């Protein structure tokens, strides 16, 4: 084509006008994801969001200060700025909350008609939708995840969990094949920092639907959306004490789990803490569910739709900066398509936009904390020392805040640390396999068993793989899809118990 119509902006033209397009370049063809047409910053407005500088505990339907009077800071990982001071609950506050929950259970919640409990849950679900924008913004500020995710994933799914369980609340007589059931009483629930609001919804919605009352302990570093949820519970006019929120460090959680008035402990978090909890609860008669770490295997066969698989891989390991317990952090690729997959993955991560969590175009936000960032850096350094080849997206990182560029390693030995340890960051370990049997052997060669993914165009192969993969959740030709009706949970050192679906109801009921 003539160069005359090529009146393109500065920096767009890469070839000499009139050069034959068919001429093969000397070096391998490489796509250029530069700044020819860059997106202007598109920050979500935050002026309508007010975060109170002092956050209190929500106990027995009232907002109260911690008995110790102590506070701790919660910081925005995207800016390293302090967002608020949060009350630090100790054993006395936990005791207040458990007593309030017990009172609410005895006096109101267990006596209320099931259809009225359902109405309460519906009100919460609708209020989450109404306040979706505020919740999403606060979630991104407090946790560092991109606004795109908090807006399109976390908040809608949280509302969906309340809607789903509101539907069950007055139909539980039909949930267990006609068997009689009873609520457990007071549930103590401890949730992690990676999906603060969503995990609160996963815990609270089924517990309330089954007639229990709850004391929720959000993660120390991300308490703000759980407190907003408490505000919603208050505005939805649930009886006082049905939902209590106590904020604090690990010790607060330990006090909650150890409290004699708690009938059920539900924990999502690290495998190490999960083991401690299980030891502590042995012999107490408390019901326990644990949803712990993972090192999900993502298996890509040569006959897979590779471009879609790349999307699944990216979703699997870079969603929420890889800080996802069901992340697909080990990629097993059939050897014949390894080079193609690596090349496409390299090009794909070059288009990921890393930066301000509140920018609507950000794909990868901030790492949750300095500690977590240091851990990721340590493990990546270990990967390099062990001789794996590092591929990192060529993006500029903000100077403030905790950021890590999307990374993957090829040539990873199954015995290496990056292939075995949960990194909980945007770091993927790629290995190859030759046969389905070898894929299974490698995929199952881990102490974890939470999630796995399979990509192939052959239906029979999907079924065979799903049968042999040792994981609580197996996705086929997609990854990381969550739905309230679909039970989620792990085996082996990824924990036990299920959340979501009918199976999830079993964890909050005693069925005869």
């Amino acid at each position, binding site marked *: 084509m003539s160069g005359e*119509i090529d009146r393109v902006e500065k920096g767009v033209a890469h070839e000499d006008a009139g050069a034959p397009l068919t001429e093969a370049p000397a070096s391998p063809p490489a796509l250029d994801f530069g700044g020819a*047409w860059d997106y*202007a910053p*598109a920050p979500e407005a935050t002026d309508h969001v007010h975060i109170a500088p002092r956050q209190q505990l929500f106990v027995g339907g009232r907002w109260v200060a911690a008995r110790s009077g102590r506070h701790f800071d919660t910081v925005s990982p995207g800016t390293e700025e302090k967002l608020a001071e949060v009350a630090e609950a100790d054993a006395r506050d936990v005791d207040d909350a458990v007593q309030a929950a017990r009172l609410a259970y005895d006096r109101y919640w267990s006596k209320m008609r099931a259809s009225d409990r359902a109405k309460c849950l519906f009100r919460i679900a609708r209020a989450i939708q109404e306040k979706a924008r505020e919740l999403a913004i606060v979630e991104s500020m407090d946790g560092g995840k991109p606004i795109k995710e908090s807006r399109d994933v976390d908040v809608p799914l949280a509302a969906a969990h309340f809607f789903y369980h509101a539907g069950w609340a007055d139909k539980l007589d039909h949930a267990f094949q006609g068997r009689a059931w009873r609520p457990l009483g007071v549930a103590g629930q401890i949730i992690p920092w990676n999906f603060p609001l969503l995990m609160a919804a996963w815990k609270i919605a089924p517990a309330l639907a089954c007639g229990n009352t709850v004391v929720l302990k959000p993660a120390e570093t991300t308490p703000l959306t759980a407190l907003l949820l408490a505000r919603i519970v208050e505005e939805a006019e649930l009886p006082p004490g049905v939902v209590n929120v106590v904020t604090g460090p690990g010790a607060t959680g330990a006090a909650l789990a150890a409290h004699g008035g708690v009938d059920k402990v539900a924990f999502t978090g690290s495998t190490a803490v999960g083991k401690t909890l299980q030891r502590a609860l042995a012999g107490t008669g408390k019901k326990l569910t644990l949803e712990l770490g993972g090192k999900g295997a993502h298996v890509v066969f040569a006959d897979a739709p590779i471009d879609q698989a790349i999307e699944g891989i990216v979703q699997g390991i870079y969603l929420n900066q890889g800080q996802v317990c069901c992340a697909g952090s080990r990629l097993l690729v059939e050897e014949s398509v390894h080079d193609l997959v690596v090349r496409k993955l390299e090009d794909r991560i070059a*288009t990921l936009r890393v930066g301000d969590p509140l920018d609507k175009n950000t794909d990868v936000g901030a790492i949750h904390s300095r500690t977590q960032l240091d851990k990721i850096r340590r493990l990546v350094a270990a990967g390099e020392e062990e001789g794996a080849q590092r591929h990192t997206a060529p993006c500029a990182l903000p100077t403030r805040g905790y950021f890590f560029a999307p990374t993957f390693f090829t040539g990873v030995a199954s015995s290496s640390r990056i292939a075995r340890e949960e990194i909980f960051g945007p770091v993927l370990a790629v290995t190859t396999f030759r046969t389905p049997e070898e894929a299974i052997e490698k995929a199952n060669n881990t102490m974890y068993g939470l999630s796995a993914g399979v990509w192939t165009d052959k239906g029979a192969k999907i079924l065979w793989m799903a049968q042999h993969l040792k994981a609580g959740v197996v996705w086929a030709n997609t990854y990381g899809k969550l739905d309230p009706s679909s039970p989620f949970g792990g085996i082996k050192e990824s924990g036990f118990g299920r959340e979501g679906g009918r199976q999830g109801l079993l964890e909050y009921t005693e069925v005869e």
Partner: protein
Amino acid sequence: MEERAAALGTRSLKREAKVAGLKLAVRMMDLTTLEGKDTPGKVRAMCCKALVPWADDPSIGPVAAVCVYPNLVAVAKRALAGSAVKVASVATAFPAGQSPLDVKLADARRAVELGADEIDMVIDRGAMLSGDYAQVFDEIAATKDACGGAHLKVILETGELGSYDVVRKASEMAIAAGADFIKTSTGKVQPAATPAVTLVMLEAIRDHYYATGRRVGMKPAGGVRSAKQSLHYLVLVKETLGDAWLKPDLFRFGASALLEDILMQLEKERTGVYQASEDFSKD
């Protein structure tokens, strides 16, 4: 495919990014009229708009090409004489492609003789769907030959192909048979261009580039009516193929109504207020 295409549709493009994108979209446009009632007067008027889309802002345009039926190529060629705007002609028994090969080739050859710089051919969808791939391939290769120096755009008519798998296969065949561009639709069949089908075709282009280093162009056509949609397509290109394709010799929009909406949006960005639709030329 749909999920990825939709995800790219959530990119938020404001201010300078929006203006730069929309101006680029204008320069990538094949301004099109393909109606039985087309007349020399209509085509001349459209050519004027192609050269100067918006007199108040000379930084806009000209468009890449005008796209007409063979009978109007000479008119367009005269109207655009001396400018860089190309004349594209549909050919090969457009839009159905259901004619003997010699008729189709003669159609293309005549359009080139009449002055067309670019030929937009249609593939034989009947042959494609009945599995006669060799025929589809040979017809494209023969048309490429008949075009001589004119650029060949191959219309797959994705709305008739039924699945992304067939679109992908047709894309690969068209590229292998020598297409300079692959194009979604004639504009005569619904659905025409969609972001998802465009993404499938962009991926075929990318894989061909990986394998050979040859850059094939892409033209979504039909159904792209709003400025916002055009930006969505540019995002698809930018994040699938990168910077090299963000220019008129590798990406085009086939559209008739799109220009007016883009001008309206650009004028809004320039002056801060929306103009009435009547303020823009309807040619």
